[in-house]
Each structure stands twice: as C-alpha cells, then as structure tokens.
C-alpha cells in the first residue's frame, strides 16, 4: 500500500503523454480502441487508488470502525498514509463522485434530447437519411442505442456544396460513426475525464482518432482525394460559422487541415505505440489491484490487534 497506491496517478500522466504522441502514429481504428480502453482502465485505477488513500479517514469514524471491527486508535497510529493526505483524498473522492454523477446525468440528458429529435425524423426520413432545409453546410450522425434509429442528417446547403462523389464520401463518413458506435467511445472518455481532468487531453486525442477513422472509411467508400476534397470544401464553407472554436479541438490544433492532409497521404501503421499505451494501463490496473490487496491485509491486521 505504501508505494503502489501512488502509481496510477503517475501513470495517468504517462498515458496522457503517450496518447498525444502515439495517436498520430497509429492507424485510427487501433488508436481509438487503445485510447478509450486505456483511459477507462487508468481512470478506474486512479479512482480506486484515491479511495484507498482516503480509507483511513473513513476508517477512523467510530461507526465505520464498529462495522469493520477494528480499534479506532490503531488506525491513526498504524496507517501508512499521513492523516492530512488521507483527508485530502477523502475530499477528492467526494469530488469524483459528484463529477461522475453529474457527467452521467448530462450524457443521459443528451441521449434523451437525441431521442426527441429522432422521433421528429421517424416520419419524414424512415430510411435513415434525413435532410433539413438549411443554407449552412451541415452533416451529422444522430446516434441511438437501437441501430434501427440511427440517422444521418444532411442540410440542403451541404448537398448543394458538393458533387455526387463528395456527397457519397460525407454519407460514408457519418455512417461510419454510427456503424462503429463512436458516440459510445466519446461517452466513456467523457466519464474518464470526469474522474481525472488530465484525461481530457486523451479525450481530445480520441475524438481526433474517431474522426480519422470515419475519414478513412469514407476514403475506402469513394477514394482518398474525393474524401479529402469533400472535407476541405465542407471546412472552408463553415469558416465563417463558428467564431469561437470548441476548446477541445483547439487544444488539438488544426484538426480539419490535419485530417485533409492525412487523407492526401498514406495511412500510418506503426504498432509499437499501441503496446506502450496498453502496458501503461495494465501497470496502472496492476498497481491498483496490489494496493487494494495490501489494504485488505492492513485492515485484517488491524482487526486482529
């Protein structure tokens, strides 16, 4: 419990750095899967580690000590965690619980809002492609847990902007988001970020990887230059629209030009980075399990004293 419990926090930092470096060098599909799974594991490990650090504070409460059948005084004297640290950890645990609960509620609200939008489409667009009359070039994938309710929403502005091949590329891009359930990836990463704010950087990397994944699917359906030109045209047409860019994408840098440039090049393949990310996550999980085991032993020993 002494040292292993601190490992997950160090490894969160390592994951963030590795994620930023590695995501541009992996194939998008592998990058996305690796980032989301590692983020989830590291977030969970960090949460458990904080709880372990907080446990002496909780264990000292007379009611808890009574349930656990260990002497209150012994916790104070024999705990390997300094009392001030344990108190800070307890506050952090409360913060994490509130943050995760709030995020989960927010995600559920979005899902519900999506459902009412989808119901509006059910009559006018039974086939899965919905058009809205809007001069702005818009193309969205509206996701739902039931596959049959997936919709691709395209504006008349977008349709007029592109030639037939480019329209096919845009459709393929949005369908890829739906087919591979990308919004689920984003939901998991958002929850991971609720546990540990640093993982917000990993969430940005993940969103970029998901867009690249859908771009690659669009390129497969049409061709790389066609997908590139569709994306470039759509990007240029939306330049005036969003004067304040979303903070997330701004953190990543020039996302759309990067994506277009990537489509004009060959896709990357280097595998070793994926294993570095996975190894980090596994070590974090392992450290967490070890620390949990140690903690159990600690409280067992307390009970017997």
């Amino acid at each position, binding site marked *: 419990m002494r040292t292993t419990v601190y490992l997950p926090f160090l490894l969160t930092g390592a994951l963030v750095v590795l994620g930023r470096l590695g995501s541009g060098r992996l194939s998008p599909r592998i990058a996305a899967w690796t980032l989301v799974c590692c983020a989830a594991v590291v977030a969970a490990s960090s949460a458990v580690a904080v709880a372990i650090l907080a446990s002496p504070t909780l264990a000292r409460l007379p009611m808890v000590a009574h349930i656990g059948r260990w002497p209150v005084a012994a916790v104070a004297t024999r705990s390997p965690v300094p009392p001030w640290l344990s108190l800070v950890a307890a506050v952090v645990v409360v913060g994490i619980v509130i943050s995760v609960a709030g995020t989960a509620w927010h995600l559920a609200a*979005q899902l519900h809002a999506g459902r009412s*939008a989808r119901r509006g489409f059910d009559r006018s667009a039974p086939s899965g492609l919905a058009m809205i009359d809007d001069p702005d070039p818009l193309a969205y994938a509206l996701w739902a847990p039931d596959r049959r309710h997936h919709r691709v*929403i395209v504006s008349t502005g977008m349709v007029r902007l592109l030639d037939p091949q480019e329209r096919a590329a845009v459709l393929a891009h949005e369908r890829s988001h739906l087919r591979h359930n990308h919004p689920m990836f984003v939901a998991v990463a958002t929850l991971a970020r609720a546990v540990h704010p640093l993982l917000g950087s990993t969430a940005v990397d993940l969103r970029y990887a998901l867009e690249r994944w859908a771009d690659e699917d669009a390129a497969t359906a049409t061709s790389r*230059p066609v997908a590139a030109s569709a994306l470039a045209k759509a990007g240029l047409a939306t330049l005036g629209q*969003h004067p304040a*860019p979303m903070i997330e994408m701004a953190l990543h840098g020039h996302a759309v030009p990067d994506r277009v440039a990537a489509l004009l090049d060959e896709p990357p393949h280097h595998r070793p980075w994926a294993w570095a990310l996975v190894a980090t996550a596994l070590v974090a999980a392992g450290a967490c399990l070890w620390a949990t085991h140690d903690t159990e032993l600690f409280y067992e020993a307390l009970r017997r004293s």
Partner: protein
Amino acid sequence: MVALWAADGAMTPAKVQAAMGGDLAYTTVMTILARLHEKGVIERTKAGRAFAYRPIVAEADVVAEHVRRLLDRGQDRTAVLQGLVDGLRPEEGATLRTLLARADAARAAAEQG
C-alpha cells in the same frame, strides 16, 4: 431522396433519373417515387402527362429546430450527435484552400490514370 432535395423545384421521374446519373431504370425510379408518395414523404402535382414530385419541407423545418436545440446544448454534444466539421479557426482557411487544390489535382490525376 437526395436528388429531390438537391433540386430547387418539383421534378418529374425523368429528371430524377437523370440527376441520379442514369443508374436506375425509368420504371424503377417511377416506382420508388410512387412509394415515397404513398408514405407521405413527398407530394406531387400534375405536370403534363407525368407527375412532378417535391419533398415535403415543412416537416423538416420542425426537425431542424430539434437538431439546433441539440447543437446549442453546451460543449459536449457528441454523446449523441457527431458532425463532419467542428469549429474552424479563420487562419485555417488558407491551409485548407491549398489542400483543396492538392485534392483536386489528385482527383484529376486519378481520373486520367
């Protein structure tokens, strides 16, 4: 449907067939349009001997409002809705124009080769 929406007015089956690139037979296009009309997705008016079909836009405007509300709901809207392009900065325009020229060149080369 996409061909109908892209047009600015009502279209006869012949025009729809042409807009779709002539991949489908005339009778197929006619059948699809008739079925869409039965479902209430498009409306038609007589134009000479054939019908001219027009998509029912009014419904879509209501839906657009739903979508707009979804989009305006703060930063993290991508649990449900993922867009093609999000938040471009003005300085990215020049880069994009250069890249678009490259893409056009690549397409032209591919079509010739």
